[in-house]
């Protein structure tokens, strides 16, 4: 991986943020983190990450809204959104797609799955060559 992809992790629970950071940095991604929606949009504006790992349950502004706000300015090719949620019922995921997220994953997650999904999204966005 020659270029370091920027990934923004948004979760109000520090434990998750830390774990995802460890996993992603080990896989040579450049990781930013935010604990709420406003902070997330701020970093998106400044850093323009390649991908956002977005938790659905956030204080004040929830994941759907954050996602919609990102989509107002950026397309999937710019920023892919991977939604993370503890809710397991399907309709939450479906509404997640409705707001413009590109993939979803349940919490708790398997680090390998997270990496695979991120890779897949980057590939789809044309940023990563097919191995």
């Amino acid at each position, binding site marked *: 991986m020659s270029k370091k992809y920027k990934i923004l992790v948004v979760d109000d*629970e520090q434990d*998750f943020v830390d*774990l995802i950071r460890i996993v992603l940095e080990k896989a040579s991604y450049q990781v930013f983190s935010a604990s709420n929606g406003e902070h997330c949009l701020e970093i998106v504006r400044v850093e323009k990450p390649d991908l956002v790992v977005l938790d659905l349950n956030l204080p004040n502004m929830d994941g759907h809204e954050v996602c919609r706000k990102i989509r107002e300015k950026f397309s999937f090719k710019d920023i892919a959104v991977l939604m993370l949620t503890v809710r397991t*019922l*399907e309709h939450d995921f479906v509404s997640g797609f409705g707001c413009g997220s590109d993939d979803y994953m349940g919490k*708790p*997650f398997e680090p390998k799955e997270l990496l695979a999904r991120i890779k897949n999204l980057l590939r789809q966005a044309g940023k990563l060559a097919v191995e």
Partner: protein
Amino acid sequence: MSIKLKIILLINIAFCLAIIFISYTSIKFFRQSLEQSFISNNVNVIKDIARLGKQAISLGEYEELNNAIAVLRSLDSAIYYVAILDAQGKVIAHTDKAMINKILPSKSVFGVFHDSLEIIKLEISDDLKAKDQFFVNMENGLKLYTFTYQSTLKGERIAFIRMGFLDDVIVLRMNKTHDIFTRNLAYKIFYVLIAIVLFSIYISIIFTRYINVFSKALKLLGDGKFGTKITVASKDEIGSLSADFNKMATRLREIDYLKEEFISNVTHELRSPLGAIESYLNYMIDEDLENMIDKDEKLTVKGINLSERHEYLNRMRSNTRRLRKFINNLLDVSKIESGNIHLDKKMVNIFNLVAEVKDLFYMQAKHKSIEMKIIVEESAGYIYIDEDKIKQLLTNLVNNAIKFTGKGGEITIILSALFHAEDRTKNFMHSIQIAVVDTGIGLEEKNLEQIFDKFEQVKNKGPIQDNFDKGTGLGLAVAKGIVEAHGGKIWVQSIFGKGSTFYFTLPSVIIE
């Protein structure tokens, strides 16, 4: 027997007994008063005759007297004879002309010598205490009611009067009056009885209406509809009962709401940290695996080597997962119970769904040498359901089947379409039925009923492998909720020791 019937019977029996008693006493009283009036009427008649007799004797005109009694007799067919004797016992007037001027022994005048059947003492005359009598006797083979009377003038006996009434005529006459009275009474009783029956039905309806209202409301309450209210406008005990009921229902709803809130809050609060724990464990297990492949397995950190560590972490993860599963089920149950279950329905190929679920268990089944197969009895095609929830439900049933089936067993999923009797084309399929048949330990008869209840787990668990296999006691409750939310039914048949079959149906909805 229903309360309605009981009230009707009770009222009717009570009133009937009262009517029987009243009519019996009134008939008896009427008979007595008939007899009484017969006697008192004729006492008056005999007094009149006595007055006439006094005049006639003082004037010596017996002819008139004879005419008078003849007229009297012609007026009343019950009169057998009337006789008037002077103080010496000579007949001075008699309805039988042949008797006139005969002298009768004085004893016979008073009837003492007759075979008196019954002598009733009567205070007939005002001026003489004794000898005036009314009695029943036999004369010439006829039963008679006889009245005797002594006529006096200035303390001197001047005449005896004696009248005989034919018993059969009198009785016949009394019976006639009696019959008319009874018939009238019977008519009235008949109307009263109809009124009572109607009244009792009315009363029973009033009472049972309230009972029905309450039982309906209680049934709703029992079904978990805690908002049920009763509106009874009456201000009596029933009114206050319904007010109390409403109070209880409101309280129950509050408690239920608190419970829902509590479960929802607690489970959400529990899920986040558990999710974090599990995610970290996932990471550690993955890393360890890589290390175990890359490096020496015997690498030890403070006496625990890598493979041991790996196992312990796996155990931690199993338990965390079990906890997560329980919390998820709990949340599902509370969603189902509060009616918040959301169905995201679409047309789903049911065979594919069943096949997918079967594939999920490929490894598990292989591990226990369990043969799994699908039998399609009647092709069902597409059905309008919430795919994920039905998958969750079927997964649950198959998971149970595997759990309770020993090595080398067999699990069969039978898919069949149920049709309306008239037409066996796909448009007339009214539901599909899926049966999960296992050759496991089976269920005891007594457990079949409550197996779908919350926290209901059968004690004798059979071949369970490890902790992670332990159920939450909520799986089947969730399954039931999912099936019922789709408008279907779920039930189980089992032979203890031989295996169980879980059936569920999903109604087919035709979308235009």
